[in-house]
């Protein structure tokens, strides 16, 4: 019989040159390598299923939108949990509860963050594969030089905003470099994420009403003010874009890089090599709760979603197999630096043995995505990021920026 065809659409790039034929997932490195190898392995294991892989440019939603609009979507698609609701609310996605059940994947085994991320209106719309959040990536060599280490060699983290500023100043005096390495040029990511993290920690529920943002609050102001102070006092690198901040940190431009879980692997590898700024001096921490409150960390996650369209039972079966396979190999995906979405993987010794995992493990429990009902999260994030960035860099008054963010987001959500 002809093999059953399913179409799988994903981002994460193409790396056929390195991993195009690799079926040994454990050998693969990096997001692209691992996901390529995962799919290769699945195809090898299931000769009766033909997997058409459609690779799209990150994040691929323009294309997905077009495909859905034209009625020719792929079957399975990688999707950020924050974006799920956009498509789900239009009825474009297939609930997965039944599918997962038949596949033998129990949603109860998801991490809390993962489960929350894919659950919309009480139904599950995606197979979560990871959670990711922001971290402080630390250049320990500089921190030692700045005297910001405890006797046991561990890092002294600031506990309040003032402390943070003081430490940063001390750092700058001793090391001659800025404390923070931030990507500020046309990159909105770090800012909205910092906002979400600290606002959540301060329990300022900016999306109490998921259709209405409330951002012009004292808490929000405090956060923006802190970053503005850092910026004004030259305690951060400026004008670097995303790439420049990464390479800047590797070159030793500053002490703390604000970036995501996904770069941990790279830096860890660097720190084990000799002759660079991070050699034997790299570690990571969650954002220190400098405004008090309870630990909570914004998170998002990647998931596999299923589009709504007519399928044969064979295809559905194939899809079930695929999802099951992805859930089963979730550990391999976690090697990218992301937190896995399967609680069992988190609990496994294998996972804990990965570099720096212990430091960030708590995050899995305290990760907090935006409420699922908030629509257009990518767009909302962008707006908040833009406005906050403008305020931090002095292009706008803080109040005005927060107010503008509010109006823009609310106008967006109202339509």
């Amino acid at each position, binding site marked *: 019989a002809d093999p059953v065809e399913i179409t799988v659409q994903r981002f994460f790039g*193409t790396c056929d040159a390195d991993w195009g034929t690799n079926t040994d997932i454990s050998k693969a490195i*990096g997001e*692209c390598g691992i996901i390529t190898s995962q799919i290769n392995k699945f195809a090898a294991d299931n000769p009766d299923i033909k997997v058409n892989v459609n690779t799209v*440019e*990150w994040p691929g939603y323009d294309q997905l939108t*077009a495909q859905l609009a034209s009625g020719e979507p792929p079957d399975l698609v990688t999707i950020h949990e924050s974006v799920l609701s956009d498509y789900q609310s239009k009825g474009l996605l297939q609930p997965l509860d039944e599918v997962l059940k038949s596949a033998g994947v129990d949603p109860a085994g998801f991490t809390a963050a993962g489960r929350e991320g894919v659950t919309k209106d009480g139904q599950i719309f995606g197979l979560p594969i990871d959670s990711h959040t922001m971290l402080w990536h630390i250049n320990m060599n500089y921190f030692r030089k700045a005297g910001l280490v405890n006797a046991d060699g561990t890092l002294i983290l600031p506990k309040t905003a003032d402390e943070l500023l003081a430490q940063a100043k001390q750092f700058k005096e001793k090391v001659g470099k800025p404390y923070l390495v931030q990507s500020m040029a046309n990159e909105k990511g770090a800012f909205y994420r910092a906002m979400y993290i600290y606002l959540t920690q301060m329990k300022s529920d900016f999306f109490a009403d998921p259709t209405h943002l409330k951002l012009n609050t004292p808490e929000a102001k405090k956060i923006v003010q802190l970053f503005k102070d850092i910026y004004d006092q030259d305690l951060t690198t400026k004008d670097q874009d995303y790439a420049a901040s990464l*390479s800047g940190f590797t070159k030793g431009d500053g002490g703390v890089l604000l970036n995501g879980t996904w770069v941990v692997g790279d830096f860890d590898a660097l720190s084990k090599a000799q002759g660079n700024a991070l050699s034997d001096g790299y570690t990571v921490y969650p954002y220190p709760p400098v405004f008090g409150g309870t630990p909570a960390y914004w998170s998002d996650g990647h998931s596999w979603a299923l589009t709504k369209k007519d399928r044969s039972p064979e295809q559905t079966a194939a899809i079930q197999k695929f999802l099951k396979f992805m859930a089963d190999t979730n550990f391999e995906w976690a090697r990218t630096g992301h937190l896995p979405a399967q609680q069992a993987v988190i609990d496994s010794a294998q996972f804990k043995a990965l570099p720096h995992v212990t430091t960030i493990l708590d995050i899995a429990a305290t990760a907090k995505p935006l409420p699922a009902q908030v629509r257009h999260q990518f767009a909302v994030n962008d707006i908040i990021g833009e406005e906050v960035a403008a305020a931090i860099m002095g292009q706008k008054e803080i109040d005005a920026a927060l107010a503008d963010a509010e109006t823009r987001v609310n106008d967006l959500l109202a339509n």
Partner: protein
Amino acid sequence: MTGANIGMVRPRIGDVLIVLLVVLAALIMILPIAWVIALSFKLNQELKLDTNAVFHAPYTLKNYLDVLGGSNVFRWFLNSVIVSFGMTVGVLILSSLAGYGFARLRFPGRDILFVLVLFGLAVPEQAVIVARHQIFSMLKLHNTYPGLILPGLAAPFGVFLMTQYFREIPKELDEAALLDNASRFSIFWKVLLPQTIPAQATLGVFTFLGAWNDYLWPLISATKKEMYTITTGIASMQTNFAQTEGLGFLMAQAVFAGLPTLLVYLFFQKYIVAAVSGRAAR
């Protein structure tokens, strides 16, 4: 030119200055491309530390091998060739026919229609893209070659160019052919069309380049990997936050995507320059 000879009696400081300025400007034109090409021959890891590394060895072809290693690159290349050629041929046919019609024949409403077509020049693609996408969905044209080719055929520029060009061919030629018992179509086909070859070449090259470089429409219409063009295909190879993964790789992609058009340009350069300068300005 005669004008250039005037005052050749003594070389002027002004002339030297102009040459210097031109060379400087040319450097500005070339430098970015040179920079990109240079980066594309460097290992990503090295560039991550310092882009100044381009000034010393080692150089590598790995980035290009990686581009070529993408298993679909040749398919995308083929798609681009098919789409670009298809669009070029289509535009040439439609524009020539319409150019002849507008320039040479009288029919009711001709002038109004021509003005309407000229208005089309001012329509931004974004103003029609949503509706066009919906129409193509209804007609099931997405992920097909016609779906990629057709939108290019509606471009009024070719009609404008060909009309201008046909207008410049002496009317006596039509009349001679008319006295030679030639039909309307054979006047067009056998007598006038051969005169428009330079214009066809220009229009052809421009259409080809435009089709090759088109990005937005292929992105949302050809959503299956087998139907990507080289431009969207190469873009799809970029890893998220691509620059970090490999500046050299990214640059190799840029070079790879830009190379065919540059080659086409260099190959047809004489034609393009002559034709652009000969006709479009009038």
